[in-house]
């Protein structure tokens, strides 16, 4: 006993850390990643490795040489951004485009706002949307799913089932294939089954709560249900079709629940999820893009500070 430490209570800590939480999300992403590798093969591997490494590198370079502050790439957040970005990309995208996406995600969306915890918009989605607007052709051709596909840039392409809504295709895979993920799409978004396993893991580990994903999925289900069942000829997508295709599950479970950019209490989360669900359906059904989850989340990210300001948690002892 040399010197006693004096500090205010509490004198114990849960031992939880940022990297702990990040590792938990990585584990939750694992099933979807395996599904991505299975359906899209080599391309999925190249793109995910490129995205993770380039995100880490850009964060390191910016922290070390521009901000000249502490380097925190070991907390796992940059690697997570990289993996989530890769999940939102088609597996036949050239490497250089992936690197640009990573630079936008880390450099513009995250570090320019002050790094982890200060970014108003989800970095991976900013990266994705930047690429979608800049390289619309490359970003909207998806390879056909082939188990352990050895092809990368020359993979045979297939439309996403969501193109059905825009009248570009007429046939879609069976509901079982949609559920398992045997369809064209971005690397991490196709397998509903794998994403749901990840969701359950996140809930069990208490890394996220159910509010945001359930609110989004419920809203999409109800909204598309109303449209479809009042006018099935105009609105051909059934609610189940909407939930199983595109990026809605990936978005609801992993993108919209990003800690930094989502609301701080359950009530706010429900409202935020409602907004995302409504905007997604509006874009999908009435907009010109086949998919709207990314835009919907980014738009609601912008509302998060406002939601936090006006939607307060239930206070102890208050009547409602």
């Amino acid at each position: 006993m040399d010197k006693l430490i004096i500090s205010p209570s509490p004198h114990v800590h849960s031992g939880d850390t940022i990297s702990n939480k990040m590792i938990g999300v990585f584990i939750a992403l694992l099933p979807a990643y395996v599904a991505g590798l299975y359906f899209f093969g080599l391309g999925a591997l190249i793109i995910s490795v490129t995205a993770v490494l380039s995100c880490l590198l850009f964060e390191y370079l910016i922290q070390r040489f521009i901000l000249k502050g502490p380097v925190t790439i070991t907390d796992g957040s940059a690697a997570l951004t990289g993996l989530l970005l890769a999940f939102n990309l088609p597996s036949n995208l050239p490497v250089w485009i992936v690197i640009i996406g990573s630079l936008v995600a880390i450099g513009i969306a995250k570090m320019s706002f002050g790094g982890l915890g200060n970014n108003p918009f989800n970095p991976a989605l900013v990266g994705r949307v930047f690429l979608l607007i800049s390289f619309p052709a490359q970003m909207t051709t998806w390879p056909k799913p082939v188990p352990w596909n050895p092809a990368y840039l020359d993979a045979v392409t297939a439309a996403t089932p969501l193109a059905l809504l825009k009248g570009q295709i007429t046939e879609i895979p069976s509901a079982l294939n949609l559920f398992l993920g045997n369809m064209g799409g971005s690397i991490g978004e196709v397998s509903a089954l794998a994403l749901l396993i990840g969701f359950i893991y996140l809930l069990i580990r208490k890394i996220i709560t159910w509010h945001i994903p359930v609110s989004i999925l419920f809203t999409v289900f109800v909204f598309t249900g109303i449209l479809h069942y009042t006018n099935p000829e105009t609105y051909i997508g059934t609610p189940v079709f909407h939930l199983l295709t595109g990026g809605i599950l990936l978005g609801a479970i992993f993108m919209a629940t990003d800690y930094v950019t989502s609301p701080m209490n359950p009530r706010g989360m429900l409202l935020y999820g409602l907004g995302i669900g409504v905007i997604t359906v509006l874009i999908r059904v009435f907009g010109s893009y086949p998919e709207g989850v990314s835009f919907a989340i980014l738009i609601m990210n912008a509302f998060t500070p406002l939601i936090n300001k006006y939607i307060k948690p239930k206070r102890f002892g208050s009547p409602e």
Partner: protein
Amino acid sequence: MRTFKMGGIHPQEYKLSAGIKIQDADLPRQAVIPLGHYLGIPSNAVIAKGDTIKVGQLIGQAGGHVSANVHSSVSGIVNRIEGAFDASGYKVPSVFIDVEGDEWLESIDRTREVKRECTLTPAGIIKKITESGIVGLGGATFPTHVKLTPPPGKKAEVLIVNGVECEPYLTCDHQLMLEKGEEILVGVTILMKAIDVNRAVIGIENNKKDAIALMQRLAKTFEGIQVVPLQVQYPQGGEKQLVDAILGRQVPSGALPIEVGAVVQNVATAFAVYEAVQKNKPLFERVITITGKSMAHHGNYRARIGTPLISVVEQAGGIPEDTGKIVAGGPMMGRALSNLDIAVAKGTSGVLFIPTVESARKQMQNCIRCTKCVVVCPMGLEPYLLMTQSERSMWKEMENERIMDCIECGCCSFTCPSNRPLLDYLRLGKTTVNKIIRNRHARK
């Protein structure tokens, strides 16, 4: 199993001293008996330097309504009356008594026989409790007689007895229930009579199964006392949380439990009430837990108020080698001490030795807005926001965000993955806002 509905955490329990029999702490050579209380007005000394004092003799007269009498815990000669540091780090007026022998006032019944019958009237009971200097022994040391006198127009329906002991490590209340269960229950019936209720509920967390079983068995021999096991969850010992857990009623912001018909008393307080009313023994000793992961002999000690902590600690085997922090009380709400010369006070529940490796806080990182602090807050506050406001001196905004509801339980700081000192800033804000509110009232 019942528990409170909002927030809360479950830290590792480390009840290392559970089941260890209460031992008498050795009498100190000199007792330093504080005349001040954490809350309220210090008592006025009624003895002078050189006086010869007996155990149980009144030495400090309550200095006002929210104040309590102080009695000597030792016999001997008053050496001096001057300020001494207490666990809060401030000097409080204290009576230094050089101990000679152990001579008790003859009016105190020292037999072990349990006396169940109480013939006093409610007013008589409250008078006796007031005279005996009883304060809440759960930690806040609020004078018990004040709690038993509801404001005009308010009537208690039920007495809630706190046997929760939700702080990790501490076992003094647990052990007291095991050894003095019947006396506690008699104390409970006396308290019920004092506030004119016919129902009392004793809440005990489910990590004390032996105490629950014993108290349930004993309670059958009393009228209107129910023992309820509670799911282990911190801060269940908080008054508002306990009332919520047991009655399912939430005390409104700024109000006391009496607002929802409840009066809450700790089990140790109930025992002190028993001794005061039935045995004519004022409050001058209490059970404290001496513990820590590296402690050779954990223990529960019956220590006289005013015994320097070092004296009890040495009896328990001395300070462990690897100690980096000494805490008076539990690890969640206790106070870090700079030394052990501080005396046992009425509110001292124990001494905890934390090894050096666990003592220092870890490097703070950016808030990642993970919402954990909001989720665990048992009062439904937003600690992340309050901390930012406190950093920026936004006192008015803090008041609007209900900083005065904060019970300083520390769940937010405990759970933060970025190791942010949330409670430090919340406390700063609460103290400042409290001052602002008082000034506002003073001006009116």
